[in-house]
């Protein structure tokens, strides 16, 4: 795999390169890949491994040159997670970081636009974390709202 050759580590997973990386070196790896043909940043996703008490950030990159997909995986601790922002490399990372900040509560140093993205006025646990129970929240909030009590009235 080309990506593994470039970086010098990683494994192949279903025809895609999977490169584990530390928090600090992720930036250099992505930059190196970008310079070596991996020009298309596909997405940044996050997985909550609650058993291992860590978050996994996965940077997906694609190379039109080598026709190859690379996943750079960064593991962060679950309490006070923070990561370096990489929006200067690819502008769209900014949006992914906003979403992950909102949904998982991960802080991205250097991203000045970590404003509410999908939710408005959200004060609970970040919803995509595994310890947030969507069903319970919905029952607590939306099912507790009373019905409109109507008077016995011919007029209405």
């Amino acid at each position, binding site marked *: 795999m080309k990506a593994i050759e470039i970086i010098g580590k990683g494994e192949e997973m279903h025809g*895609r390169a999977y490169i584990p990386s530390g928090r600090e070196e992720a930036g250099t790896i992505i930059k190196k890949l970008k310079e070596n043909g991996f*020009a298309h*940043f596909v*997405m940044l996703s996050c997985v909550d491994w609650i058993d291992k008490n860590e978050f996994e950030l*996965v940077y997906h990159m694609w190379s039109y040159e080598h026709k190859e997909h690379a996943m750079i995986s960064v593991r962060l601790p679950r309490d006070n997670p923070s990561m370096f922002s990489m929006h200067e490399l690819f502008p*769209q990372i900014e*949006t992914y970081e906003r979403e992950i900040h909102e949904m998982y509560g991960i802080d991205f140093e250097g991203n000045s636009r970590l404003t509410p993205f999908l939710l408005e006025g959200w004060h609970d646990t970040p*919803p995509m974390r595994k310890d947030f129970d969507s069903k319970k929240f919905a029952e607590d909030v939306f099912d507790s709202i009373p019905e409109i009590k109507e008077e016995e009235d011919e007029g209405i």
Partner: protein
Amino acid sequence: MKEYELFIGPQHPGVTGNMMYHLWVDGDTVTKAECNVGYLHRGFEKLMESRNWMQNVPLVCRICVPEPDVNEMAYAMAVEQLMDWEIPERAKYIRVVILELARIAAYLMSIGSYAGSLGIYTLPQWALGDRDYFLDIFEQLTGARVYHIYIWPGGVRWDMPEKLPGLIEKTLSYTEKRLKLYDDVLFKNRIFFDRAVGIGKIPKGKAIEWGVTGPNLRACGYGYDIRKLEPYAVYDDMDFEVIKYPELGDFDVLSDGCDAYTRMIVRRLEIEQSISIVRQALEKMPEGEHIIKHPNWLKWKVPPGYAFKRVESSKGEYGYFVVSDGSNKPVRIHVRGPSYTHGVNVAETILKGANMADVSQILFSLDVCPPDIER
């Protein structure tokens, strides 16, 4: 404050669905644009984590409303990869047929809405009316007009009815005839040239870095199509050329690419391309099973691993990142919608400096679909 603020959306005819662009406008020039989404956020990814693998199938198709089949396809492919399933040949052909029909339907809708944003209301009426005939095909094939729940992991839900190819062929030839009329009204209309050429330009060389995909990327001159790059189903058997700027068939190459005009022409040409692919698929379709035997849905466990599968939707690259830990529910499913980059970063950047009258045109020409941004 010299600028005034304008809201394009959520309740505005000039926006593609339920989203909002907050514009700061000076005179008629947009000086700053901010995309505001979340009006359609249902928390799909969260919901999927609490449903088992089969229950997720009816959920995924609801992520993108105009073209739901790509979701089913990407999800099915990702699960098939984790399960290491090889699906029947016939299912693959049927998948190509329905995907391409869905693409045509989505393009008709996008062309219609785009024409509406230019103020010619005849074309939306025609295009959306004609799109309905494709929905009829879907209804006969899958039982539903919009949300088909047809492509399952392992194959397709039902076999194709015998009489359907005839209906499809009839609809396709009707569409081909109608496309000539569309050309007269919009694509060869002088005012369309005047309005669209040079509008909403993605800077040269920035397209790939910004994550532009699909017809928008091909309008910038890059012939990249996932159907060719990473052929899924049976696209490697199909005979088609990637349409890209500046090879625009019999349409004039008026602009230097990357603008609303080229994007719409590329979409227009890809309708014809899809028609030919559907015809090829119907012709080459083998007999046989349409689905492999499934395990019990309630106890179905998927081996642990990461899977990422992409398909080419009418809007661009559609990807599903599926993570399993070996249980009967996914750990994480992350959807990469094409509008995520088009709608937020690209639109915010290219709207800056645009004329206020062109804002809605630019959005429609990027074919931004908010549900796949927010999921």
